[in-house]
């Protein structure tokens, strides 16, 4: 009996649920702190928690390649760049007061409305959709997909990266 067949027989739903709720709660709290914290480095660290949570959710969804890429690119490079930029410009310890703009109420109201709208729509539309158990994604299948169906997008993104690289060098040069 193949390994795949055996693993398919196991009922994973309980574990998946428990971890989903744990991670989701952490993510929401951390995301909230990104928006409310008074210190810019702390905001970056809370963002790391959210991103790591997203990577964990990817693993729960069976997307291991994307999960590890998420850690590698987002946590390992993007946030490090953020921290780098922070430290080059304004690495203060303690609370900073000019992080927020003065009138917050409209912003909070708009975002709240957005949240209510999207959540209610999502719940109404996808109420009874179960997560299927049959999606098997390996790194190989993802890469096959990238280099066949999505090859043009891949090339476009490569050119975009090159342009960003050159642009960043030009902008950051001493003038």
């Amino acid at each position, binding site marked *: 009996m193949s390994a795949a067949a055996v693993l398919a027989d196991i009922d994973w739903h309980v574990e998946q649920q428990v971890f989903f709720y744990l991670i989701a709660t952490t993510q929401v709290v951390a995301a909230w702190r990104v928006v409310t914290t008074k210190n810019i480095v702390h905001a970056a660290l809370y963002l790391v928690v959210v991103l790591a949570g997203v990577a964990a959710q990817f693993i729960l969804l*069976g997307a291991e390649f994307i999960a590890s890429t998420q850690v590698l690119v987002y946590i390992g490079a993007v946030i490090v760049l953020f921290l780098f930029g922070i430290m080059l410009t304004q690495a203060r310890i303690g609370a900073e007061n000019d992080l927020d703009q003065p009138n917050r109420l409209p912003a909070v109201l708009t975002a709240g409305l957005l949240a209510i709208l999207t959540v209610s729509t999502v719940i109404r539309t996808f109420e009874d959709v179960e997560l299927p158990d049959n999606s098997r994604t390996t790194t190989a299948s993802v890469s096959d997909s990238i280099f066949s169906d999505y090859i043009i997008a891949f090339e476009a993104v490569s050119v975009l990266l090159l342009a960003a690289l050159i642009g960043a060098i030009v902008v950051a040069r001493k003038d």
Partner: protein
Amino acid sequence: MRTNVFALDPLFLDDVGFEEVGIVLLKVVVAFVMLLVSVMLMVWFERKFISDMQNRIGPNVAGPFGILQTFADGIKLFFKEDLIPERSDRFVFKLAPYLSLVPAFLVFVIVPIGGDFGEDGDGTVTWFGHETFLQVADAPVGVLFFLAMSSLAVYGVMLAGWSSGSKYPLLGSVRASAQMVSYEAALGLSLAAVILKTGSLSSHDIALAQTGGIVNWNVLATGIVPFVIFLIAGTAELNRPPFDLVEAEQELVGGFHTEYSSLRFALFFLAEFMNTVTMSAIIVTLFFGGPAGPTYAGPAWLWGMFWFMLKLLVFLGVFVWFRATLPRLRYDQLMDLGWKILIPLSLGWFLFVAALEIGDNRGWSRVVVAIVSGAALALGALLMSAAISASRRQRLDEQAESDSPVGAR
């Protein structure tokens, strides 16, 4: 279905019960203890080896040959006063040592430390009637996991420097993070050649592909270049000499951990040496066949473990040798080496290996493919060096202009 998340360790082929969980826990505990003990021995080995090279005696008081010196140091650090600077960010200051320790532990999870990698072995052992791999987890994305964890190691250094609320640690940490981020690209690109050759990201598969003689080892199969790049970039990633600008004593006091004392300092110290051990283990796994080697009498998995330990020891020795003999690089030299030499070279070599691979698949002559792609790469290298020297000339001209009193802006 989660086959893709769990590694396909033969252990999980049957129903997963208490015995299987017990074996996994046992593996975790054994790996943890082994890593700690090896770090202890590594500190002693490094000090003793350097002493020998410098014609000194080195630690010789605690225990036979001073082998308990690390233990004594640990106890000393444990009983020292734990200082937290007044102007620090207390929470991040306390968090940082763990952030550098945990990734160091986690990388070791994917290293196969033994098993039957002989002529026709498949890298398994049979314990308590269960067949399994001698590694904690065989993640299908093993190599990516290693890269991800080594990119996480920046956080400990960066946050330690920032949260100390002091100038030198901040400078040290900014240096360190720039260094680690730039060398990670070379590290990943040199790994790409290995992945291309093996066709798998799993560390177990990579070790398995290298069985059956030295010619199959990736160090030869991919040409020597990726290994050399990986070794250099790995040394830089570890912040070890000659790339230890992070803690250049003459310039930065102690670097990012200047303000740390007591147990928190011990954690950084531990993480540094643990990273050295795991990086050596990764090099052995990726380039030197891991536990592969001839097996003789006795259980084959024990031979695998023996060969692995032997190769590991060689690389630990190499790292100490670097430290004892090479002078520290200047910061601009470090950046030049990383960006202008290692990254283009590893990228070019990766393309070269890929061209040979494709040529083999299509049945083209190896010599022709090698000559054509070599010529293309040489042309690329020529163009790049021309561009670099042109920009340098321009920079020098501008400098001369702004230095002269007449041309002052």
